[in-house]
């Protein structure tokens, strides 16, 4: 019966922000919404006057928008890693953080994809991509990969949400505003937790978790190929695909750790998002740090040893030139420091791991910047290095994009549970089957409408229980 109490506590805590949303939550939404709108305002200035309002010019032709594009598509790999890879490996501890990771994926993809539109000189002709699209262009590969990934991750977010939506439908009946109840009713798709529904759901989730992994890998691979298909120094590399994929999962792990600590505090999820989750994700991040460091070493050492032509100028720019502060911050703050914070036992605490994750987030954004910009600064003809300093419009659109990201995330958290309740319960059952004797017998249907397996029971609790 301890399990039942725990389950009820879980439900109460996780549903609390939805059932009785705090003023603070709405205030944060408004604040983030304003930041997001500011970004849109800056974009409207750019639409009116053209890309001349940015710091980009004929030599450095891409800047913050492409950096943001790579960054957001990168952190979208959080969901895939936590949810799909850990699900495949049946890592039980993942259950309380899968939802948070999947939301990052969906939201980051939306915000990432729109960056390309911000970057276009003629956004009014966006549809030409579909009318005249040429499959030979890596940019079209991106369009395919990102839209497929977005669709897939939406489905993958939705499927495990269904039982929780049914729970919301039942628990919030008569409490929430009518439109909200209708939304839950429609989205729950008639879920009652019958055995066949469960079977279908599990099968669907299993299919999606396998499908989503190659899709995610393909997405960041083709993102890297936009660069690697050119003859530019620093981009012209066969290792770019795996380098970007590892970087994406790396930054995704950091993003999920950061999200975990925020919502753990705000929504009082300490009981379920424990030091265990932080530590295990920290280990994953440490592993990825080392792999990413290895790739970074490989990329730069092979070039530095030979110093061919234009590559020499790139390394000069990165190691000792204008961009050296960013580059060395990335190396020390994004690779060395996080690795030490997680590796050393006395800093392997929640705050230590969170500090490492925040460092990685910042460093990986900078890393994307120093992938995109310095290469373009290198002169391909006999002239001086190109210059680029972003303007207020670009910074505003960038800050606005982060605003949108957080706004959409917070909006999701306002209406949907951030912990996959039924999966946590299912996991608890697995761990302690003796505590749930009903599990064995399927016949205990009369048990107050509570189905036999506790998981199913949670899924079909009726509003009457309140």
């Amino acid at each position, binding site marked *: 019966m301890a399990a039942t109490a725990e389950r009820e506590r879980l439900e109460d805590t996780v549903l609390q922000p939805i059932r009785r949303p705090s003023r603070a939550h709405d205030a944060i939404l408004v604040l983030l919404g304003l930041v997001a709108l500011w970004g849109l305002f800056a974009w409207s200035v750019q639409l009116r006057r053209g890309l001349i309002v940015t710091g980009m010019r004929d030599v450095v032709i891409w800047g913050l928008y492409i950096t943001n594009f790579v960054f957001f598509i990168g952190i979208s790999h959080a969901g895939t890693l936590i949810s799909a890879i850990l699900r495949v490996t049946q890592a039980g501890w993942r259950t309380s953080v899968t939802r948070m990771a999947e939301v990052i994926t969906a939201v980051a993809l939306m915000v990432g994809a729109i960056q390309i539109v911000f970057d276009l000189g003629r956004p009014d002709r966006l549809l*030409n*991509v579909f009318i*005249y699209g040429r499959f030979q262009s890596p940019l079209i590969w991106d369009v395919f990969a990102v839209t497929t990934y977005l669709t897939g991750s939406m489905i993958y977010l939705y499927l495990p949400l269904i039982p929780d939506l049914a729970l919301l439908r039942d628990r919030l009946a008569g409490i929430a505003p009518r439109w909200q109840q209708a939304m839950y009713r429609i989205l729950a798709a008639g879920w009652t937790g019958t055995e066949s529904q469960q079977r279908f759901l599990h099968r669907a989730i299993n299919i999606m978790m396998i499908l989503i992994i190659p899709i995610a890998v393909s997405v960041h691979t083709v993102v890297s190929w936009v660069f690697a298909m050119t003859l530019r120094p620093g981009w012209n590399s066969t290792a770019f695909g795996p380098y970007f994929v590892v970087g994406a999962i790396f930054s995704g792990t950091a993003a999920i750790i950061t999200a975990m600590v925020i919502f753990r505090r705000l929504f009082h999820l300490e009981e379920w998002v424990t030091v265990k989750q932080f530590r295990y994700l920290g280990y994953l991040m440490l592993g990825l740090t080392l792999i990413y460091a290895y790739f970074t070493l490989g990329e730069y050492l092979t070039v530095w040893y030979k110093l061919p032509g234009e590559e020499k100028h790139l390394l000069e720019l990165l190691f000792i030139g204008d961009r050296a502060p960013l580059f060395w911050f990335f190396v020390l703050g994004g690779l060395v420091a996080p690795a030490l914070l997680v590796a050393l036992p006395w800093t392997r605490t929640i705050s230590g791991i969170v500090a490492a994750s925040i460092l990685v987030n910042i460093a990986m954004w900078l890393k994307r910047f120093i992938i995109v910009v310095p290469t373009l600064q290198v002169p391909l003809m006999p002239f001086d290095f190109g210059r680029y300093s972003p303007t207020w419009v670009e910074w505003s659109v960038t800050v606005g994009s982060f605003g949108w990201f957080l706004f959409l995330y917070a909006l999701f958290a306002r209406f949907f549970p951030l912990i996959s309740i039924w999966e946590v319960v299912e996991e608890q059952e697995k761990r302690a089957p003796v505590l749930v004797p009903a599990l064995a017998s399927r016949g205990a249907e009369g048990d107050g409408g509570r189905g036999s397996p506790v998981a199913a029971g949670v899924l079909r609790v009726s509003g009457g229980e309140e």
Partner: protein
Amino acid sequence: MVKQRTDSDDQGPSDTRASRRRFIQWLAAAGAVIAPLPWVSFAEKERPAGSSPTTPSPQDGAQTTPRRQWVMVIDLRKCDGCLSIDTPPQCTEACIREHFVPEGQQWLQIYEQQTPGGGSFFQPTPCYQCENAPCVNVCPVGATYHNEDGIVLIDHLRCIGCRFCMAACPYQRRFFNWGDPNLPPEAAFASYSPEYPVPAKRGTVIKCMFCVHRLRLGRLPACSEGCPMRAIYMGDLNEDVATNGLEVVQLSTFLAENNAYRYKEELGTQPRVYYIPGHGQEFGRKAQDERDLLPVTWDYGLPHSAGHQP
């Protein structure tokens, strides 16, 4: 043997049903994946009618003219950067006047290259009209393409302004109209075509296009005509002939005898511009000459040839 076969025969129907069902499921899945593909063509799109030969040809026999393989040969022995006549590079300024090139862009730009043993030479760089053009390869919408004579053009009505072609160009020969170009009023009278991209359109990529509109009329490109030293030859690989307006040479012999090279040939882009090595010596420039080029002006100005716009 027989028994085995009977066994399998017995299981046959149910097996078939199961595998057919699986096959149909598989087919549906594959269909869902392939369905969006018709949106995208695997070949370069056909040009909209009238967009390639938009410039009317003066002769009726234009259709029967054999196809050209235009190449440019720049004799660096003759290029002194216009220092001996004390003007900014005349090729660049002629180009600017011809196409109302927006301020800041030099479709044909002269760079000063260092020679290994000290000293320098001037290298006029138009768009190289590569046969294996990286810009054409990466364009997502087919807005940049080869015309039938091998020249790389841009359809400014289709370009979405992603600038991927600029990232791909290893010669940095493409320019972007970041804002509304500041052009003289006459530019507005030009009728736009990819062969004569005037007036420049905001948010699109633009570059040298070998003055196709002039070549069509049998005239030399503006830069070639504008070069006081006659350093720029225009030639046709098919007919193996080139001219700078003063002399006509056999292209293959001219290139071979003068050790012509192509810039960054090792990249495999197959540029259509050949250089004959030199440092302006035919007009007395020494490689060690330290004088710099005079700055180019965007003065669409007065010595404007009246009939240049066909």
